[in-house]
């Protein structure tokens, strides 16, 4: 009797271990998500300071009739300084520098972009919400503590007093951070955006798809429909299985050594990144596509052959269209994996500071995950929330892609 009790409590303990393992794994998901969301949500708003801006034509040396090119080149840096002086009168030089630091360094760009959109405002005074510097932003968001000695703060006492004055005047406000979604990278956290990286990843994925989808599909068609099982298929099969398990960094080395080193494709471009991701995705697509082809019943092939279709017609008119949803599902899942791959991008140079939004697969670019990596390596607190926000965006894309795969499978896949 005693031994039975012992056995039963052992049973209970074992079950508890299992439950614990499941719960712990789920806990990891939660804590990961919580950490990302709690650090990243700040990136979607930015602090601004209201200022009176007078687009003095004498100062920027353009007028209502100036060409766009001239407007573009006007001296906004000086205007920015002037705006600061006018909004904070009676500053000595030392104070001026401190106050100027409270505004973004990209002050001049903000003025320029505004004027380019509204050239009729030359000679007029308007109220603008000027973006605050990242350090000020972090203080306002409460990410930097205020109640520590001045030496440990990025914002000194004088700046804090100015901030408090501005706040009491109701000039400090938070706005939705469009810049994050529309701009390329920047040295200043407050003006750094993810859009360049998104486009880089998009071009890379387009290349990846254009390479891996047709080739994966045709390769699987050959293996399933045209070739007799034998040595050749065995070799290809073993090869594909192994390729699927090769570490992604090795694919990056292939890109660097072969595509860049030997063939001479440019460094840092989505074309190479996309090809490397395509090499990685190919096995996934072939495996999914073969399974999908196998699920098309032989009776369909017989039906087509019996009305006198050739093998090629049977395959292209009937078998491939019927297997396509399965192949597409596999392709999207493979591309979602490719989107999150960072190491190969590092190898082929898609991990540099790129301000411009790439205009095509041959322009230097970063990718979404490599941008996240770059930001995570920055010391500034302002980039921390950018990193998390970048991760949120990446996860959003992954969710969308995986959902699309599930929808395609549910909606389009023919059940036999």
């Amino acid at each position: 009797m005693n031994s039975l009790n012992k056995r039963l409590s052992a049973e209970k303990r074992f079950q508890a271990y299992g439950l614990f393992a499941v719960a712990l794994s789920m806990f990891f998901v939660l804590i990961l998500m919580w950490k990302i969301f709690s650090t990243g949500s700040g990136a979607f708003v930015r602090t601004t300071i209201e200022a009176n801006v007078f687009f003095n034509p004498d100062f920027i040396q353009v007028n209502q009739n100036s060409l766009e090119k001239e407007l573009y080149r006007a001296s906004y840096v000086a205007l920015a300084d002037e705006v600061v002086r006018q909004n904070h009168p009676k500053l000595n030089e030392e104070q001026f520098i401190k106050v100027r630091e409270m505004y973004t360094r990209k002050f001049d760009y903000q003025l320029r972009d505004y004027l380019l959109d509204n050239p009729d405002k030359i000679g007029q005074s308007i109220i603008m919400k000027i973006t605050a510097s990242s350090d000020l932003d972090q203080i306002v968001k409460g990410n930097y503590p205020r109640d520590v000695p001045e030496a440990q703060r990025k914002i000194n006492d004088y700046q804090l007093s100015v901030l408090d004055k501005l706040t009491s005047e109701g000039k400090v406000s938070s706005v939705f951070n469009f810049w994050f979604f529309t701009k390329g990278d920047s040295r200043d956290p407050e003006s750094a955006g993810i859009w360049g990286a998104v486009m880089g990843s998009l071009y890379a994925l387009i290349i990846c798809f254009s390479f891996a989808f047709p080739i994966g599909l045709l390769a699987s068609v050959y293996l399933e429909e045209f070739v007799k099982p034998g040595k050749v298929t065995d070799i290809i099969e073993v090869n594909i299985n192994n390729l699927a398990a090769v570490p992604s960094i090795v694919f990056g080395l292939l890109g660097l050594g072969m595509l860049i080193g030997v063939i001479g494709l440019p460094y840092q471009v989505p074309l190479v990144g996309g090809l490397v991701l395509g090499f990685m995705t190919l096995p996934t697509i072939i495996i999914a596509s073969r399974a999908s082809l196998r699920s098309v019943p032989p009776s369909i092939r017989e039906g087509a052959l019996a009305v006198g279709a050739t093998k090629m017609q049977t395959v292209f008119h009937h078998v491939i269209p019927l297997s396509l949803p399965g192949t597409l599902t596999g392709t999207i899942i493979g591309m979602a994996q490719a989107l999150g791959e960072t190491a190969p991008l590092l190898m082929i140079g898609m991990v540099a500071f790129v301000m411009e939004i790439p205009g095509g697969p041959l322009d230097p670019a970063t990718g979404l995950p490599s941008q996240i990596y770059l930001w995570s390596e920055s010391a500034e607190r302002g980039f921390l929330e950018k990193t998390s926000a970048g991760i949120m965006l990446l996860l959003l894309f992954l969710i969308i892609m995986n959902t699309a795969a599930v929808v395609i499978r549910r909606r389009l896949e023919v059940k036999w």
Partner: protein
Amino acid sequence: MVEQVNSFAIKTKNVSVHYGNKMAIDDVTINFTKNDVTSLIGPSGCGKSTFLRCLNRMNDVIESCKVQGEFLLNGVTDIYGDSIQVETLREKIGMVFQKPNPFPKSIFENVAYGPKIHGLASTQSELNDIVMESLNRAGLYEEVKDRMDDIATGLSGGQQQRLCIARAIAIRPEIILMDEPCSALDPIATARIEELINELKEKYTIIIVTHSMSQASRISQRTAFFHLGKLIEHGDTSKIFTKPDKEQTNDYITGRFG
């Protein structure tokens, strides 16, 4: 004698078929008369399907299958020879399978597919005519005329099988092979198909495998009895079912084995 040759749709001689090392058909010689319905009967596994599939070379796709012997279409064309392409051959010899296998496409597309790949219609309206006529002949047109664009797999089993018959006759074959076309159908659908076969024999030579002896006696003029890969007896249906020459045939039709 010359007349006799021409009245055979397919002549076969000394046919043997192996799957790997396993023999499925053993030295069968049989001729099929034009515009007759010939039933192939015999216990399951005796090689009826195998033999039928030799006639339009559907066995080509099975890796291990080796076919030997002589096959002549209309007394002259060697079915396995170089003078005719396998696709053209299958245009002349259509086939309907045991389980209805419509393409998962629209009803129209199912019937139109054959004519399209063989270029039987040069305009859309010609194609429409072919589809309509084929469906009509298969006795399906009235039931589906309002939903030609519906997916074919939504039809009932009997309708699907008639659609497959329409698909087979849309390419204007001379011969139609049917491999137990009613075995997956209910009695009413079966009766419709049998009716249809009766009408079709005016224009086509039909060779049908069936496991139902009553069906064979109802629809066919000629009957061939297979056993263990051998052709035991072949003759007029009435004779086979009333006074067969061979004891084995007699045993089979009286239900003593099979």
